């Protein structure tokens, strides 16, 4: 009997850029999808061997166990500063940070804003899941008004706890930013768009066109207390209205970029 698994029949496999390691993410978490997209893009651009990733503090603290390139592990929120330090001494390398919303939009707000303002030639993959996954589901700077978390048990009260921060919009006001977009990982069509954006972001860096960031709306089934499928629906119904998808900054040179 002929086997079905022949090279001609393979339509889906682990990209070279992902290690052969089972991830530590919960079932339904979209960190894994984001990792895969980054890995595919780095492989397609043929830059895995000259890329340095910077992992954050958060659920993706061990991103380096899964994405197969040189990696550093930053202090909580400081990845953009660390990336700056690396990129300035190794300008011909591809340097990216991979950060959650607590890491980037809360404790690391200073580092990200100034890296963008300086127009650092780095790429930032920003995972917005509206919650602190790693520490057990506390309120994040991106938690939606009324959303229940372990530190906003009766729902985020904007009078006492303030409003969610829209990072893509905020960073897009900075002249150093070359490419700032928001995408979502809740269905295949959006995942394809996300991949295209990640590719563009890394191309922006390759062509030294300034700071690039792709914000990815992501799920956290465990933190949200929903099933994986419910989480995808919840993302679409609640997160997208609060964090509209779109291109927030495409500088002129980036717009002229042919990929």
């Amino acid at each position, binding site marked *: 009997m002929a086997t079905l698994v022949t090279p001609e029949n393979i339509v889906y496999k682990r990209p070279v850029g992902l290690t052969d390691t089972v991830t530590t993410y919960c079932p339904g978490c979209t960190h894994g999808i984001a990792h895969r997209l980054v890995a595919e893009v780095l492989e397609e651009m043929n830059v*895995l*061997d*000259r*890329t*340095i990733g*910077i*992992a954050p503090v958060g659920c993706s*603290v061990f991103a*380096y166990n899964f994405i*197969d*390139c*040189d*990696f*550093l*592990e*930053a*202090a909580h929120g*400081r990845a953009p*500063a*660390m*990336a*700056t*330090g*690396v990129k*300035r*001494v*190794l300008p011909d*390398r591809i340097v990216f940070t991979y950060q959650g919303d607590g890491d980037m939009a809360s404790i690391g707000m*200073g*580092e990200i*804003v*100034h890296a963008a303002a*300086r127009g650092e030639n780095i790429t930032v993959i920003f995972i917005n899941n509206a919650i602190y996954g790693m520490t057990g589901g506390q309120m994040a700077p991106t938690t939606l008004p009324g959303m229940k978390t372990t530190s906003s048990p009766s729902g985020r009260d904007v009078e006492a706890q303030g409003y969610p921060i829209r990072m893509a919009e905020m960073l897009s006001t900075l002249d150093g930013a070359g490419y700032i977009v928001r995408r979502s990982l809740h269905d295949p069509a959006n995942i394809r768009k996300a991949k295209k954006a990640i590719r563009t972001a890394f191309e922006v860096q390759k062509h030294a066109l300034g700071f690039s960031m792709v914000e990815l709306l992501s799920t956290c089934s465990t933190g949200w207390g929903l099933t994986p499928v419910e989480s995808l629906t919840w993302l679409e119904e609640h997160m997208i209205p609060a964090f509209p998808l779109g291109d927030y900054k495409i500088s002129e040179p980036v717009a002229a970029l042919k990929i």
Partner: protein
Amino acid sequence: MARELLKGNEAIAEAAIRAGLDAYYGYPITPQNEILEWMSKRMPELGRAFVQAEAELGAINMVYGAACTGARVMTSSSSPGISLMQEGLSYIAGTEVPMVLVNVMRGGPGLGNIAPSQGDYNQICKGGGHGDYHPIVLAPANIQEAVDMMPLAFDLAEKYLNICCVLLDGSIGQMMEPAELPEMQPYPRPFNQPWAVNGAIGRERRILTSIYLDPPEEEITNLRLLKRWEQIQKNEIRYKEYYLEDAEYVVIGFGTAGRIALSAVRAARAKGIKVGLFRPISLSPYPYKRIEELCAKTQAFLVTEMNAGQMLEDVRLAVRGRVPIRFYGRLGGVMPLPDEILDEIEQMVKHPPKAEDDPAAIWLHRMLETVK
């Protein structure tokens, strides 16, 4: 090379550049601004990396990133800024990568003032950041010594994969003195250490991290750091001795306090008092053994610092009650005058302290009476 009249901070900056500095990241704070300013002009001029960071948090984490690539990297700051850097310093120690920190102390605590102080001895020598680690700390007493320390600091940091701090105060940073700068090292200095994270071209990929989730693995990491620290303690003790051959009394002071004490010791010698000076240069590792040896022929020690007796505790650890100690400190940015230390030497001779005395407590009560 000829001796020139140089400002401390600028001389330190230029010496680092000549030692092959690849990157400087910093944030303005008095009294060390001239280092950052010098770097902002010279580093781009030479095609090397310079960033004025958004804060010391950013600066130290930029240093962390560059250190992981194997580049020669440094930052400089002063007390409040060094406090802010402690997180990064702990991560750098935990990742076992080399860096140089120039720490120009000022009066504290809090915002304090910009006057010279030695109030951050404990902070830098005893850790400051979380976890079990030891930076190497070198304390110059003049500009030439500071200049000579810069290449040494990089060499030590790289040899032991350790933080190396050059610890001074605003007076050395701000004063001008004749000094000779080192020769410019050939540049670029290729860096491709076997641990460096710089892109996996033609090799297996590498990861640098300070997270060891498995406690036994973290314990092994801690032991590895301590093993290296043991080597540092064995090999890298530095100090300078003055008039100790026939000394019956020994003054101990580091950096500026040691330098002022030297004038006092000379004045006391002129009055016939057999006194010498022991000036620790490596504060971490500390020259415990040498002080222990000095106990054999010393009648009493006078420890003098620009703080409330932080190094005094290390001296007491070395002396272990064998010889009485007197302490004299000035605080908060006030510098001791040579006459004050001379007076302290004379008092020590006239009214010998007792071995069971608590020198810091006695000093404090004297201070509370005289400084009102």
